[in-house]
Structure formats: structure tokens, C-alpha cells
């Protein structure tokens, strides 16, 4: 690495990670207003444990994101499998529709979805929120998995067929294991995108049912508590753990590196 490259890389790293480091430090700082001098304390963590609102909202967010990720990964993977086998205009059109969900601001999508759900009589609700969030994260799953499927050597499937595996068996024994790292990766991505998605949840969840982004929003309006820093630190730790776990489970195993 040249000196210039090193400077660029470290400044990018700094910009990306400095806010996170500040949040982690502040979660251990006694001051209510995030001021120095730093004095170590775990009081915000104990506040967090006592704050039912934050804990309930966190568990709602986790369950919602988990469900959405599971659904979106299943539907999205099936969609990607279909998409790579289609070369007609239908395929291109479906790409367009999926890209539109990424390109159109979530604000507009959220309002539009709410109107539709009201129109067909479902209105706000858990079901609406799940459907809305799945629709928003679906393109991420489809494009990630599709990229991997496109990169797979077609001869592998043909080799499998010639060795006596039916179409379904070669899919299960060859395609799925080889695409697994990207399927898991896309599930994680779907989870994170859904976990973060304030806008869609704001419009579609029943009034009064608050997931973590909505809870934090409502708390920040009335006054910021450093307990949120503590929560952020816990969430960060959880994310890092999940990533390490995925790496361990096989996504990074040498079996999947071509």
C-alpha cells in the first residue's frame, strides 16, 4: 500500500467508525448530556435493563426483522432461481419492478402501501408491516442471490445430472450449497435493512405498537437518554457476533471459495 492509499483507507475507516466509537464510549460515560470528562459507569446499561419500553421495542424489532428476513430470503431465493433461467422480456421487466422498490423513496412507498392496505380493508397491522417490509427488502435478496447463481458454472448442474441427480436433486445438492453463503448473506442484509426501516414501520404498524426505530424516535422527541447509547452498543455487539457466527458456520469457509 502506498502512503496515499493508506491515508485514504484510514480516513474512510475513521469516517465510518468514529460515530460508532463515540456511541460506545458515551454508553459507558456517566454524564447525562454526553459531556467530558469521561467517568466510567454502567448506569445506562442498568437503565436499559429497567426500561421496558426499549426492551419490548427491541424484541419486537428482532422478531419482525427475523420473520421478514426469513420470508424475504425464501421468496427472494425462489425468485432469483426463476430469474436466472429466464432470458425474455419478462425477466427484464421483473428486474425493473424490483429496482423500482429500491429507487423509490421509502416515504412514498410507505404512504402508497398504507393507502392500498386501507383500500383493501387490512389497514395498519402486523400483517401489513410484514408484507411492506418484505416488499422493501426483497430486491436486496434477489440481486445478491442472483449474482451468485449467475456466477455458478452451468456445467456443475450438468455434471450432477449426468451422475444421476434429477433436476430437483441437483438443485438441492449442488446449487443450494454453493449459493448458501450468498443466501445467508442476503438474509442478514434483509434482517438489517428491516431492523433499520423506520419509514415503512412508521406507516404500517398499528398505532401504539412501536419497534425499536419508532421507540427511539419517540424518546428522542421527548428527551434523549444515554440508555439509547447502551442499547446501540448491545445491538452493535449482536451484529458483530452474528457476522462472526456466519463466518464460522460456513459462509467464509474455504469450501465456498472458488
Amino acid at each position: 500500500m502506498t502512503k496515499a492509499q493508506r491515508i485514504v483507507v484510514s480516513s474512510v475507516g475513521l469516517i465510518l467508525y468514529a460515530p460508532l466509537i463515540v456511541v460506545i464510549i458515551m454508553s459507558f460515560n456517566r454524564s447525562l448530556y454526553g459531556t467530558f470528562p469521561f467517568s466510567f459507569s454502567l448506569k445506562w446499561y442498568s437503565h436499559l435493563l429497567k426500561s421496558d419500553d426499549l426492551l419490548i421495542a427491541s424484541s419486537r424489532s428482532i422478531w419482525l426483522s427475523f420473520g421478514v428476513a426469513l420470508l424475504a430470503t425464501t421468496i427472494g431465493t425462489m425468485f432469483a432461481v426463476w430469474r436466472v433461467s429466464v432470458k425474455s422480456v419478462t425477466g427484464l421487466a421483473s428486474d425493473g419492478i424490483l429496482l423500482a422498490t429500491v429507487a423509490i423513496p421509502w416515504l412514498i412507498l410507505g404512504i402508497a402501501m398504507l393507502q392500498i392496505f386501507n383500500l383493501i380493508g387490512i389497514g395498519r397491522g402486523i400483517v401489513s408491516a410484514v408484507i411492506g417490509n418484505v416488499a422493501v427488502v426483497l430486491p436486496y435478496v434477489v440481486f445478491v442471490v442472483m449474482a451468485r447463481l449467475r456466477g455458478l458454472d452451468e456445467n456443475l448442474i450438468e455434471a450432477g445430472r449426468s451422475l444421476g441427480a434429477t433436476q430437483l436433486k441437483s438443485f438441492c445438492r449442488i446449487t443450494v450449497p454453493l449459493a448458501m453463503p450468498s443466501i445467508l448473506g442476503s438474509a442478514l442484509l434483509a434482517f438489517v435493512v428491516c431492523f433499520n426501516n423506520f419509514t415503512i414501520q412508521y406507516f404500517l404498524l398499528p398505532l401504539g405498537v412501536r419497534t425499536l426505530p419508532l421507540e427511539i424516535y419517540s424518546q428522542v422527541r421527548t428527551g434523549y437518554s444515554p440508555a439509547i447509547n447502551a442499547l446501540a452498543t448491545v445491538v452493535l455487539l449482536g451484529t458483530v457476533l452474528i457476522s462472526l457466527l456466519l463466518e464460522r458456520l460456513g459462509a467464509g469457509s474455504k469450501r465456498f471459495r472458488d
Partner: protein
Amino acid sequence: MARLEVCNVSFSYGDTRILNDVSISIPDGDFHALLGSSGSGKTTLLRIIAGFLKPDSGTILINGEDITNVPPEHRDIGIVFQQYALFPHLTIWENIAFGLRMRKLSKIEITQKVAKALELVRLEPSAQKLPNELSGGQKQRAAVARALVLEPSLLLLDEPLSALDRKIRGELRDELARVHRQTDTTALLVTHDQEEALVLASEIVVIENGLVRQSDRAENIYGSPADLWVAGFVGRTNQFRSVCKLKNGEIVVSIANRDFLVSGPQAIEGNEVMLVVRPEEVSISSDGIPVRVKEIRFMGATAQVFLTLIDGCELESLVLAPVARKIAVGVETFVKIDSSSVKILALT
């Protein structure tokens, strides 16, 4: 072990005719080669035999049984691909066991058969390695073992040596020949490499633009090409245009004002023909046809000598390197061509 027959197979992709009424037949246990340049339709034919493509018309028979509509997994055909196509997420052992597991064989049987297959291709030490830990040659040997462990009635080899470098290619070629001798599997090699086809196959089918140009024993493809195209495609040639003349009751043609006695279906008085002489049939000599040496290209054991005839025509000779060292560029010398080495073919 089986007999393969491809009967009158045609295949089009859109408006483009890829295969045009192709028929080939491989007797039980024989090793044949399908030789053609890229775009000749040879890979399409392989994919039709394997069952990945359906022909527009024609049938594929194995042991007389029509398998044209049988899905690939029930055809009992082993395939070795150019890019190996080993499953990257499975070890070599698991790769070879894949087909046996699909057939639901018992664990003991699988273990025995895989061990035997590994031994056949001498890969026992690499059994627990993943494909990307192996060299190209080892990968292809593993792919051969994976295909042969099922004892298929037919083995298809799709340019199996093209991805390897020259030295390994030679080794693996010999290895394939040995494995074929040991297993006696009916095999079809698809290749653009004439040397590979000539060395491995007992019979060669030359295919071009979806048409079978010649189907013959390997030595005849080179020695008696059916037409000018085959002559030019398989090996190097010297070509001369001439007219058949009647002389002393026999048909002769002339190269550089020398007469050569010829026979065959094209040897008709007045017929304008193309004469083909292989470079190794042109020997440098102390008398004969006068020539001037234009260029010498040493290629290790042999050398290509490019010569100019008196009439300005060019002639190529392939000689052993020591012979070429005795002459030099610009020198005038003589060459000899034996009448029996002059092949007479129709103009195209």
C-alpha cells in the same frame, strides 16, 4: 459397455442450422473422436448425446435402445468437462461418491468403488482435498474418476485436455489412453486438437458446419483425407493444381514439370484436380526437383523447411533437425516426392 448410434440428427438454433443430418456409430468398447473447429457443431452433438439438448430430428441409440427422450440422469452416460466441473464444496472423495450416492448404494459399496476409482487415476493421496487444492491435471483425473466410477455405458469427453498446459496435456492424454484400455468403456472424445484425436481415438469423425466430412480410421483421416477441407484441417499440406493427362496409357499429373502416376476416382483424363502432398513426404535429396531454400524453422527434433520451386510455387518440407542443419537459407538443392504420396482430390 455399450454401442452408441447417432442416427440422422439435425439441430437448429433459431434459423441457424447447427447439425445437419449427422450420423455416427461407435462399436462397444471403442474410443472415437469427434474432431472439428469451434462452431462446427461438435459440442452441440455432445450435448444432444448427453441429453441436455433435444435434436429437431433423428435418434440416439445406446445398445439399440432409443434414448432420445430419456432425461440425462437416466442415460447412464459419464461426462468429463473441459473446465473439470468438480463440485467445489465437496472433497475429491465426495465428488467421486456423488453419483454412487444418487444411486443409493450401500456405504460399503461406495467406499470400495471410490477407493478403486481413486486408484485407477492415482489420486489416493488427494481423496480428502477440495478441488481447488488440486492442480489442473489432478482435477481432470478426479473428474475422469467421478465419471467412470458409475461404470457408464458411454463416456463423453468434452475437450478434456484443452484447459491444461502442454506437458500435463501429454501426460493426461497417455493416462486417458491407459484408463480406456483398463476399463474398456465406449468413449467419445470431442476435440479441436487433431493430435489428441489421432493419438487417442481409433476412429475419427471430422465435422464442419454441422456436416460430417469424413468418418474413418484415425490413420486414414490423415493419410487419405476425403476432401481438400479435411486434408487442410488435419495436418499441414502442400497443394498444387493440375490437370490429369494420359501418358503411355496411364494417368499422370505434374508438379514442377515432373509427372507423377496417380490413380483413384479423380484420375480421369482432362480432369482438373488438386494434388496434396504432406510436408514429411517431401525429402531433401541430392537429386530430383530443383528448389531454393527460403526459410528454415527449427522445432526441436524436427524442422520445417520452406522451399521455392523453379516455377515460383512454394513447397514445405518437414525433416529431422540434423538434415535441416546441413542446408542454409538461399542454398539451391533438390527434393524428392514419391508418386504414392501424391493424393489427388477434387477441386472445391
